[in-house]
């Protein structure tokens, strides 16, 4: 399963994200900015997909759609078969809580809370018992290799460790997708590689990962790459990018 090339041939899982011809318009004063101009995409369970594009390509807007932080102006969006476009704020919050694990460029940890409390947060919003919560959160931290940093606060952790806490937080509710927005953007390249290795590991354990990046070196880790330009999909390539082959071979 870990062999990259075997990925291409294995059967695809059920559809998690299904968008069809979605558009998103923003009103900026007098002007209407058309961030997305009709994007259609299907993401299956246990895919590792990278969304690439220069700034202004609609990459961030699309990520917000995937993350159920925003709803499209028009078009169809189904998440696990549920129509997201018609949901209200609280229903979207429930989807974000249970189905989506966010990993941000700036980590977005609560500065005055310990790793454990940070990781517990989604479980609190899910209404889990305190004992079960602590157990699950501790396990998630152990899973990302931070079993000895449970009671540390973010300012006592290195950048890489902080991002690991954030990944543990993203994983703790067993979401359908992990949405990583420039996860290595604030890290040095060595630490960045460690984080990418962790994501690779999560993928191999059956998680669905959506990676949003403008860095080719990062995108090469994915098994499928979607390029956006001016609010439409420019290319959608399944397969390992050339740079990947040499890395996989090594």
């Amino acid at each position: 399963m870990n062999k990259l090339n075997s990925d291409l041939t294995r059967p695809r899982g059920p559809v998690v994200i299904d968008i069809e011809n979605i558009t998103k318009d923003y009103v900026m004063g007098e002007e209407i900015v058309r961030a997305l101009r009709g994007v259609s995409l299907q993401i299956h369970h246990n895919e590792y997909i990278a969304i690439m594009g220069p700034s202004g390509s609609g990459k961030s807007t699309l990520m917000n759609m995937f993350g159920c932080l925003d709803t499209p102006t028009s078009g169809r969006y189904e998440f696990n078969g549920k129509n997201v476009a018609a949901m209200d704020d609280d229903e979207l919050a429930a989807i974000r809580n249970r189905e989506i694990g966010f990993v941000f460029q700036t980590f977005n940890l609560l500065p005055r809370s310990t790793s454990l409390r940070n990781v517990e947060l989604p479980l609190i919003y899910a209404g889990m018992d305190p004992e079960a919560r602590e157990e699950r959160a501790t396990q998630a931290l152990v899973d990302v290799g931070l079993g000895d940093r449970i009671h540390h606060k973010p300012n006592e952790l290195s950048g890489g460790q902080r991002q690991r806490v954030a990944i543990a937080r993203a994983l703790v509710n067993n979401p359908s997708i992990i949405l990583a927005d420039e996860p290595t953007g604030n890290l040095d390249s060595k630490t960045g590689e460690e984080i990418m290795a962790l994501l690779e590991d999560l993928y191999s354990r059956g998680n669905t990962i959506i990676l949003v990046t403008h860095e080719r070196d990062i995108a090469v880790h994915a098994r499928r790459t979607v390029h956006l330009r001016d609010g439409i999909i420019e290319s959608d390539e399944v397969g390992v990018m050339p740079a990947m082959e040499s890395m996989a071979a090594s």
Partner: protein
Amino acid sequence: MKRFVYELSESWKIAVAQMRSNMTRSTLTALGVIIGIVAVTLMGTAIGGIQVGFDKSMAIFGDDVLYVGQWPWRKVDDWWNYRDRKKIKTEYAAGLNHMIAMTPNSNLTIAIPTSSVYRSVKYTDSEVNNVLVRGTVSDYIITSTFDFKEGRFFNELESRSGANVCVIGYDVADALFSSASPIDKSVLINGQPFKVIGVISRQGSFLGLFSLDSIVVMPLPAFQKYFTAKSKADILVKAKDKTKLTDAKDELTGLMRRVRGLPPEKKDDFSINEQQALKSTLDPIKNSIAIAGLFITGLSLFVGAIGIMNITFVSVKERTKEIGTRKALGARRGTILLQFLIESTALCLLGGFIGLAFAYFMCLGIDKAFPSFPIHFSFGLVLASMIVSVMTGLISGFAPAWTASRLDPVTALRYE
């Protein structure tokens, strides 16, 4: 429901952490609430004190006793109509008692004559001025609420014979005898010696205006022998059932008209007073003092509330990104609303507690320094000020918390 409880406890933890990490800011903001709560609470204790004193003073009159007198116990605009009324005479009591006895199912039990005058009371070298000297009968004790510190009231025999005996009030005993027992000593009133047979225990003062302990009570015949000039007579009539006081009053009016021999077309030329009537004239005054006082002190609490609102707005602004993160992790609008409401409420509760503690010690201090100042610190007041604190927190925190809950997660996450 379970989720709500967890979110509530989470919100409390955040609120406490937030207050700790912004010590200076929280303290300064809470100070506004502290001052407000101290002001409102002290006002509350003062109002409570007035109320307690008022009720105590009222109780002295007895709630089942009617007072027949020349003047009504209320402010009159046409005083000239009352001035020329015939004086009330102590002899009326005998007539009233006779009629009460003749009436089957009367609502009245007994009529007591009293006659009063202000005189000085002397014992050896000591003298007390302006003492209320009252002559009455032995049954007077039935209509009164006082107890005896020592000794007794005069009996029927002494009452009828007009013996030169008297019962003195606490202040009189204190001024003339200090620590010694006045029993069987003779005091001089108008140059006449009266043997002291009893001392009334301390009654306090009526609304803090005049002392009820500066009194001497003696048998009516003895009183009439020496103090007829300038004396003022009242008839006290005890009702059978205090719930039927209106009926009793009507009956007494009829009896008094017969005593006075008034033809039907003439108006009453006497007044029948009761504790309740006095209360209803004084209540509006007391209430307007309370309302005005609470309003003015409430303004200081309002200023404190504005401070809380302001700081919560600042808190929402500087934690915009955190709000975005929480929303991304699944916090609903209600969650965020709750979080900031709890923060402002926690701040107000803290201020409320400290303010209440301050107020409590200030009350103790005032009570020590000025014992006569009416102050009353009650559990109800503690509860009320806690409720006021929570309400202040909820009201002042609502606008900022609402703003926070409505933040668009995308914008909030991008906020730097």
